């Protein structure tokens, strides 16, 4: 009896060990690039050129971070990443809010106010998710030019909003579809109209999916390089474009430590969003964002 219980216990322990071991091994694999980035950004440049890129720093210095933030050169403008950081904020936040808001309303309409053809419209919207963006750069440039928005941040906001609607509509539609129609019908009988139902019944339950949508959109828009490089230049550029100019320097010793520090600065907002709001992300997904 005792041996059976013992071997069962051993089996349990072995099972736990395998689970933890597997997770820790994978965690190491996942952390390795972050390790490389952080250690490189605090090393002296000579140390990087002398040794391998993966080892521990002999001496820690934050000079590279200082340079990256306020002194690194984007062409002849040597003001670091700070101004472009602000540009990215000015671009990302409105685009996230707009695309999320429009997606929420679209999802609401498609699920609760269906009409003949509403599913077709949803399908048309959804196909936009799969568009390779390189293909639309030139016609979009012409369009922005016609609208007088070429080279401006509002132009970028428009572009990101338009291409974000496909995703946000998908998220909200999949979420709202699980809200019982009876709730809506009951509210209509009580006299509530289109807007009232949305504001007092649908929205309050939508917090998880709003978070999911905002996180996804923030990440996609903040990290975008293609649209930023195509539709802005110089002072109006977002941080990814400036980062590219700082990193892709063709002459002189590459300042790897500044490059990595700059890359980390560019990545900080999205990292923070994911680490802090990550649990809401999963919670939001659990609450039905991905029901097929």
């Amino acid at each position: 009896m005792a041996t059976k219980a013992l071997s069962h216990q051993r089996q349990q322990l072995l099972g736990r060990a395998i689970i933890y071991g597997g997770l820790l091994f994978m965690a190491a694999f996942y952390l390795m690039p972050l390790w490389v980035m952080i250690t490189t950004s605090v090393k002296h440049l000579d140390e990087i050129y002398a040794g391998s890129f993966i080892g521990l720093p002999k001496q820690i210095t934050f000079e590279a971070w200082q340079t990256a933030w306020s002194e690194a050169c984007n062409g002849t403008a040597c003001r670091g990443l700070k101004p472009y950081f602000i540009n990215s904020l000015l671009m990302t936040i409105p685009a996230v809010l707009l695309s999320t808001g429009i997606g929420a309303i679209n999802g609401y309409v498609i699920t609760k106010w269906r009409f003949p053809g509403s599913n077709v419209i949803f399908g048309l919207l959804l196909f936009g998710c799969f568009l390779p963006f390189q293909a639309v750069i030139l016609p979009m440039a012409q369009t922005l030019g016609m609208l007088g928005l070429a080279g401006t941040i509002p132009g970028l906001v428009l572009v990101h909003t338009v291409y974000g609607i496909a995703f946000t509509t998908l998220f909200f539609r999949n979420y709202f579809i699980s809200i019982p129609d009876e709730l809506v019908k009951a509210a209509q009988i009580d006299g509530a109209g289109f807007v009232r139902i949305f504001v007092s019944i649908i929205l309050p339950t939508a917090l998880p999916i709003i978070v999911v949508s905002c996180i996804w959109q923030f990440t996609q828009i903040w990290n975008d390089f293609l649209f930023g490089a195509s539709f802005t230049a110089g002072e109006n550029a977002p941080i990814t474009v400036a980062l590219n100019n700082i990193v892709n320097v063709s002459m002189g010793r590459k300042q790897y430590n500044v490059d990595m520090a700059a890359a980390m600065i560019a990545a900080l907002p999205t990292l923070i969003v994911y680490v802090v709001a990550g649990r809401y992300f999963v919670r939001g997904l659990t609450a039905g964002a991905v029901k097929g």
Partner: protein
Amino acid sequence: MNKFKLILMATATALPLVGQAVAETKIEGLHVWTSASEVKALKVITDKLATMGFEWQDSAVGGANGANAQQALRTRVAAGNPPAVMQFLGFEGLGWAKEGALRSLNDLYTKNGWKADLPPVMLQFLEQDANFFSTPINMHRQNWVWANKAIFDKAGISIPASWDELIASGEKLKAIGVTPIAMSDESWQIEELFESILIDVNGPDFYKKAAIDLDETALSSPEMIKTFETLGKLRGMHDAGFTGRDWSAATNMVANGQAAMQVMGDWAKGEFLAKGMKPGVDFLCFPTPTATPNYKFVFDTFGGFTINNTDIVKGQDAVAEAIMDPDVQKNFNLIKGSIPARLDVSMDAFDDCAKRSFSDRVEAIKNNAIYGSLTDGFAVEPRFSGVFQDVVGKFFVTDMSAEDAVQALVDGINNAR
């Protein structure tokens, strides 16, 4: 006037309303110079502009060997918002000039007599349909070998007189534990080697037939096979870590003594000078080995897009004048590592490698042995030089045979015609 031009003009006139070129004294330029030394050289031009009453508005787009800047340019033109001034290399400017998008600088050229001050071989890249559209600031030479003198002495080798000799010296270098050639597996860096072999082994006339005229007989000839075979012999002369290496990292390998030689244009010279190394003493510069001395060039030019705005027109003229100013040419090139485009600038302040480049250029012009670099876009249009790059790059990193490479080259060129 074709539709494209119409759209361009119409939207460009609306420019002040869009708020792009606002103040009278600003002139905007799009270029690829993002590193510290390049920006320092650019400052020579922009300082001169400031004395002329114009403020330079910088739109630098770096990376991808100029492809990002090309993309930015195309999208801006599509949006009806072209840059006032644009940096052009090789055939880039000609393409836009053919579309009628660039402003003619004939008045300035006539007034200042610039045509006579420039090497004749440059002119074909500066004018289209009898209209001059851009001005050159410099001339880089592509076919240099940069070598570490101490290594050469240690291995007991002298400057090779032929590619076979260069390849033979590789064994001696490997014996003392030094990488013979510092390079990368990036296709364009391999192409730099290829085009040097092409002209050095087969002569300038063959280079013209094959790389510039794209003559099919030349492209499929035994000489072409021999070129690939010679390139193939270089496969054992680089180190294992050459994958994805930046060209300046390779230059640093030579400067540090980890490698003996690099075949690269004279933009590499700055790396040595920045370390305080002296030509002839610490590092050697010599043209790639050949029996038929030749000169392959690359140069930067600036042109202006047609924009209906008198201030911008004045600014574009100012940029052209600043660039062609002999002092600006001298000071710019002292920093950049190239030689002035103008033939009449004094070379006294320049280092020995630059002086040699200058005199070799004069010789090559006399002997009709000066041609544009294939890799850097001065031999043929991008769709053809792209084919060369694809085939050469693939050949070097695989075990493709020379015959297969030549066949692939011929097929590729014909496909792109």
